[in-house]
């Protein structure tokens, strides 16, 4: 498939997702109303919209959709970059424990913010939550990479995933301990952290998280050429004038930014970083110069669609979005594992 055709298809899917996400919900909005609303910044004279439609679209649905776009795009790009760095198509920020590290750090700030971590809260103010999530994500990425480097043969998939399982289990246990210190409201948010949701996203959340994700959305595509070379191994990258240590540090920081910001707003949303780059690679090949930006586009579309399903499947209640992505991603992951064992994809 050509890059242009693929981009067009995904663009259509994304536009359709945006329109659906804005139009559907407990308050019905007609296409005509949506059209009028989306043009209300223009100098055209348009009929007045009912006040409640304006509020539902502008204050509730729009920030939620935009957040979904950004989280989907940055998670998918992070997945593509991490897979390239580890030279392994099964690496994913969620699977290797990065998201759970971010979630644990975020939960710690929420529960312990008034006591043990009061100093941290005072220093970083309203940025304390995303910053803690970023640090948690960065720490786990670094630990996983060190473990992968220690094992003979480098980033072996089993080592990575088992280490990820261990870290996820450990973070889960510590999070569980924290819930004993939590009050009721904080406790409810525990489900939110572990399964992810875009339900409560406001413009304020978006304003806090978007700049972090923006950096990763710009940063990842800039790493594309270097990541292509890194696929041939760190020695070859070095021979071609690319410092592998610098690339590794940058990918770590960008991943931690993407995952940390995403988790701090919407909790853990798994499998986006695994499934999306894989699909794009199947369609267009492994060149990161196309893979990373288009993974971003597909990730954005996927997450907005997943959020639509999360809102509509059990309406008027809502599912955590992480359930939807895991329903898609779990079987897909098993399929990848099976394919890998039967075809024996090489790892060095």
């Amino acid at each position, binding site marked *: 498939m050509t890059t242009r055709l693929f981009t067009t298809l995904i663009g259509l899917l994304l536009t359709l997702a945006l329109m659906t996400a804005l139009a559907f919900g407990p308050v019905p909005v007609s296409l005509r109303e949506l059209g009028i609303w989306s043009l209300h910044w223009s100098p055209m004279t348009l009929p007045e919209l009912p006040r409640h439609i304006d509020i539902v679209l502008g204050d509730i649905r729009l920030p939620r959709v935009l957040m979904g776009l950004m989280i989907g795009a940055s998670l998918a790009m992070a997945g593509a970059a991490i897979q390239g760095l580890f*030279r392994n*198509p099964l690496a994913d920020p969620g699977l290797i424990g990065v998201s759970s590290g971010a979630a644990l750090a975020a939960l710690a700030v929420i529960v312990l913010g008034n006591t043990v971590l009061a100093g941290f809260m005072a220093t970083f103010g309203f940025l304390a939550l995303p910053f803690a999530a970023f640090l948690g994500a960065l720490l786990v990425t670094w630990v996983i990479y060190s473990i992968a480097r220690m094992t003979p043969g480098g980033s072996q998939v089993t080592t990575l995933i088992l280490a990820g399982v261990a870290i996820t289990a450990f973070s889960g246990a510590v999070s569980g301990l924290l819930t004993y210190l939590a009050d009721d409201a904080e406790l409810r948010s525990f489900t939110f952290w572990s399964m992810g949701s875009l339900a409560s996203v406001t413009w304020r959340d978006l304003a806090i998280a978007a700049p972090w994700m923006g950096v990763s959305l710009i940063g990842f595509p800039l790493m594309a050429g270097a990541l*292509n070379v890194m*696929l041939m191994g760190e020695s*070859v990258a*070095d*021979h*071609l004038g690319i410092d592998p240590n610098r690339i590794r540090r940058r990918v770590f920081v960008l991943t931690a930014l993407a995952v940390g910001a995403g988790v701090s707003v919407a909790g853990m949303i798994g499998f986006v970083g695994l499934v999306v780059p894989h699909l794009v690679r199947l369609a267009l*090949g492994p060149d990161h110069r196309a893979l990373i930006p288009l993974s971003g586009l597909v990730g954005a579309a996927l997450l907005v669609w997943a959020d639509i399903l999360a809102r509509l499947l059990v309406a008027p209640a809502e599912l955590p979005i992480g359930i939807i992505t895991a329903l898609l991603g779990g079987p897909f992951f098993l399929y990848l594992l099976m394919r890998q064992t039967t075809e024996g994809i*090489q790892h060095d």
Partner: protein
Amino acid sequence: MINVAQLSLSKGGRRLLDSISFQLTPGEVVAVIGANGAGKSSLLKVVSGEWGLQEGELSYDGEPVQGICKQDLAKRRAVMPQASPMSFPFKAWEVVALGRTPFGLNNAKRERAIALDRLELTGTEHLAERHYTALSGGEKQRVQLARVLNQLLSSQAKHRYLFLDECTASLDPSHQHQVFQRVRALTSEGIGVLAIVHDIHLAAQYADRVLILKDGALLDAGPVKSCLTPQAMVEAFALHTHRLSHPEAEWPLLVPRKNPLVAPQPVPFKSADVATG
């Protein structure tokens, strides 16, 4: 010219290289031979700039290597690894195109045209559209050679160098010679080659000079003819050989004795008689 003086290297308390000095001049092929663990790969990694310099001096055309940034170094030298596995299905020509990374990549069409030229140099143009992951070991190595040539030949640097790390180990004899003939041809463009070679005959046929390493130190260095001797084989590999002369060429042929791992008995009188008669 690459100048190596008193180069030493230690890792994890072990001395891997011990005050090695030699020079590599543009236009010559120098073979590095030595037993497993003699320090050949370490030497290549330090001299090619992949590992930092610990002790001694290393300069490229008079510039100390510490002062050359990685990208500049990549414009002056290329390294052909022993094997290059890859778990993502790039096409062969895309792998070759990556060789131009230090020079900044152009649009895909032009990169593809250049890559196809380079593939032709290693006789692999028919593999261009195949997935690299699906190639045989020998095919992969020849595609990698095209990638390395792409890097070297794209450079405008006055002096360029090529490092080969036992890169023909997985090739059949005919392809081994094909690779070394290609490499030999590069010397006419002023490229200096430092090659780790396991096969003594390849070294004898294609190198101008040899460096013989033993236990991290330089046992001997010099022209092929005077260095590749049965005596050197015993010292470097504990291998006992006969030196034969090639029917058509100058270079020495060192053929393992009937029992090459044991020192031969003193020659009995009779056979000496036969030899003189």
